[in-house]
């Protein structure tokens, strides 16, 4: 065995990314025990949208009985950014309603709420596939779509959308096992316990994409996980899958940073890994793929690190999607108090939550309970440049801050704000303790809003211009038709005062129209006869408002035109 292990070398990488931080890991505390399984909660709250993109469409109704693994919401179109959702346990759908979801700005979303029956009964029609590589790429892709798998490392991007090349043929699969943020260990323990399934998943994905080459990037502070992967790799004897040890440096797990560390390639500005033939998947996602294909288990649970100095029993747990965080925390010795912060995710990029009344979702990799940090007073920026030294995107955070404060959004874009990955390295080192990332988020939102507004008014103007054009075209066409008719008449009848006749007819017709309109109006006006002064005043007010609005819109279009 030892010989075999040695035959699988762990390569060290020769590349690195700009900046980054060496952070205290805080990883040991949650790695004392293996992965525990969380109790099935009484109620599951499953958001229809757990990632960027569009919500899934429910396929059950209130009152339906569901079984574990049954699809409860689906996607209309496999190319849209949506993923299917399955019942994490058996029970009854008691509501489809809005509920708070863990998000940066306290959003709510439509959620399916299932009252569990405690039996945890599986759907009987589950079909495991023993030999996935015998299936076609399209079949595998369809199975992955049906299993509702999304990226479990970060933003939860639907996995099936990252299985085909869009612009350039893919040549390299990169597996992200870096897990660079402090406290989080869910990937490390999953590797230690399920390395075989992970390697199988890599093979499935390679087969689905139709490529051979794979690099697994893992930080060197996880020797046991590295060993587990080595062992699993030794059993398959496949040399196109390479394990690469990278230095522990935050944020090595950022997609573009990891690509650079593993391959030395920089993903060009405003492009995706796809564009340089690379696709990245998180290690937990790969594990979910194996479970979906080989065991027929859709994505209904994930490993969550529940940790922090304020918990008595920090550990990693297998948690059903939709489990209220409160239930998970209760199993780890959590007591509510005012001197602690509750965070979903890690301390650098996580989201602060105001309570534990949120469900665990597909992207919940960590629930962190820490002693509340004293927030130091923010002082002015002294342009020391520490932030630029640590910025993994090689930006000038001090200049971005300066121009954001000045609301000079054009300049902010010149300084490439959209390359910012919000990793928080600049926040961490800032000697003035300025919450820089908050400023960048603000600037990004502001730029997006302005752009959306501009698009909207552009669209309105285009429509208006097209209408003008249509009216004029119609006028011209009518005139032409009339002239033709007239010419034709003249030809037929000789030159017998046709003009006078047509004029007379026109006048008569016009008079008739006016009369008609008058009588119409009289009919309408009956509603406004005998109004009290108060009612009349109200109507006038409404009329005035309408006029003002029209005027304003006109002014706006004028301004836009200028």
């Amino acid at each position: 065995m030892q010989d075999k292990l040695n035959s699988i070398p762990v390569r060290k990488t020769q590349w690195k990314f700009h900046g980054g931080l060496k952070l205290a890991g805080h990883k040991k505390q949650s790695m004392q025990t293996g992965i525990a399984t969380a109790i099935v909660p009484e109620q599951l709250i499953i958001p229809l949208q757990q990632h960027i993109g569009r919500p899934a469409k429910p396929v059950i109704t209130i009152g339906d009985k569901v079984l574990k693994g049954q699809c409860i919401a689906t996607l209309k179109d496999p190319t849209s950014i949506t993923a299917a959702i399955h019942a994490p346990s058996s029970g009854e759908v008691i509501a489809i309603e809005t509920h708070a979801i863990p998000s940066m700005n306290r959003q709510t979303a439509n959620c399916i709420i299932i009252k569990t029956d405690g039996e945890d009964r599986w759907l009987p029609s589950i079909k495991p596939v023993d030999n996935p590589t015998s299936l076609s790429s399209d079949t595998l892709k369809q199975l992955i779509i049906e299993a509702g798998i999304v990226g479990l490392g970060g933003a939860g991007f639907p996995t099936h959308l990252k299985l085909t090349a869009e612009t350039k043929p893919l040549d390299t699969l990169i597996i992200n096992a870096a897990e660079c943020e402090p406290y989080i260990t869910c990937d490390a323990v999953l590797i230690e316990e399920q390395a075989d399934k992970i390697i199988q998943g890599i093979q499935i994905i390679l087969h689905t994409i139709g490529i051979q080459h794979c690099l697994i990037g893992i930080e060197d502070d996880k020797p046991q996980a590295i060993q587990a992967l080595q062992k699993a790799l030794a059993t398959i004897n496949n040399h196109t899958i390479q394990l690469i040890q990278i230095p522990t440096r935050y944020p090595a797990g950022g997609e573009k940073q990891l690509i650079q560390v593993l391959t030395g390639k920089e993903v060009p500005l405003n492009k995706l890994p796809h564009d340089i033939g690379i696709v990245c998947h998180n290690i937990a996602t790969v594990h979910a793929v194996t479970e979906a294909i080989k065991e027929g288990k859709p994505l209904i649970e994930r490993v969550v690190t529940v940790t922090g100095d304020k918990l008595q029993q920090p550990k990693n747990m297998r948690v059903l999607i939709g489990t209220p965080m409160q239930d998970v925390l209760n199993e780890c010795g959590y007591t509510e108090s005012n001197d602690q912060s509750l965070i979903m995710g890690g301390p650098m990029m996580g989201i602060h939550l105001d309570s534990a009344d949120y469900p665990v979702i597909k992207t919940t990799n960590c629930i962190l309970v820490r002693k509340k940090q004293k927030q130091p007073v923010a002082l002015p920026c002294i342009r020391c440049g520490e932030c630029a030294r640590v910025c993994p995107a090689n930006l000038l955070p001090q200049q971005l801050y300066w121009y954001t404060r000045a609301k000079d959004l054009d300049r902010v874009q010149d300084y490439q704000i959209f390359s910012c990955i919000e990793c928080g390295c600049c926040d961490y080192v800032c000697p003035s303790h300025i919450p820089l990332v908050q400023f960048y988020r603000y600037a990004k939102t502001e730029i997006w809003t302005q752009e959306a507004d501009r698009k909207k008014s552009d669209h309105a103007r285009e429509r208006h211009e097209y209408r003008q054009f249509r009216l004029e075209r119609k006028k011209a066409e009518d005139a032409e038709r009339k002239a033709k008719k007239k010419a034709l008449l003249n030809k037929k009848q000789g030159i017998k005062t046709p003009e006078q006749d047509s004029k007379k007819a026109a006048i008569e017709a016009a008079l008739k129209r006016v009369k008609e309109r008058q009588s119409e109006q009289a009919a309408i006006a009956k509603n406004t006869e005998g109004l009290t002064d108060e009612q009349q005043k109200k109507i006038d007010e409404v009329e005035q408002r309408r006029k003002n609005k029209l005027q304003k819109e006109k002014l706006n279009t004028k301004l836009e035109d200028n």
Partner: protein
Amino acid sequence: MMEMTAPGSITRIMLHVLYALIPGIIAYVIFFGWGVVINIIIAVITALTVEVVMLLLRKRPIKPYIMDGSAVVTAVLLALALPNLAPWWLIFIGVSFAIIVGKHLYGGLGYNPFNPAMIGYALLLISFPLEMTIWLQPDNTLSFAQSLNYALFSTLNNIDIDAMTMATTLDTVKTQSGLGQSFAAIQASAPAVFGQFAGKGWEWINLAFLLGGLWLLYRRVISWQIPVAFIGSIFIMSLLFYPFTETSPIYHLFGGATMLCAFFIATDPVTASTTPTGRLIYAAGIGVFAYIIRMWGGYPDGIAFGVLLMNMAAPTIDYYTRPKAFGEST
């Protein structure tokens, strides 16, 4: 909300700067007596008082801004640049101007375009040229009490000031070479101002500032670009013009305020260029200006004007030296 932060703070940076100045101050005292310490005491008291008044007027919280230590650093740097036999009002005017006009009128710490200490120094140099040239000679016998007496009452009682003071090395060389004397002849005629390899006393003070500066680099309080580019440009300039000026690169590197500027003045982050490449250009620019003014300008040393000139250029330099963002070069 920030969950994890590095232990750094502005206060820590400023304290480091002050610690790093200590060797230079000690060397200064050894060669020129207590005058510089008295300068520093008066300057710091003035700076803190003026800072508090300005913060009150601007309705800013006193404690966090006083604790940042930037006013003290400005005061000490200006005190080190002033003659070591200066009346209190000279220091008071210089420091007040530096803090009020140089800093607060621009919006306070972080918003001032010019190095406050150098603004104060330039004002004094232009307004009080006579007082700015009264320098004690090295190895003088003035006691602390006598120095203090001079600072407060502008008199040395029974001692003749002229007997205790003399032009600085840079000043002597400039004046004499202006009269057509060769460097060797100047050295022979005024041995009192020359030491082992540069100005007497000044060579050791410069070495001590270099030592403190290297510690700042080691502690990562300052980045390498500014000191390296500044020292490099002084070196290249003095080497290029060595045949004409007869003053060696060593004489320039360890003369006047070269090392103080390289590690403590030009490195003021607020007024310097903020990009890595920009810092190289910025500091090299100061070196060029400082050398030109030192050799051919109307003042014995050109560092203050060099710094102020490059302060003006810093925003433009920053704009044109933005590093390529991730993926931008491919």
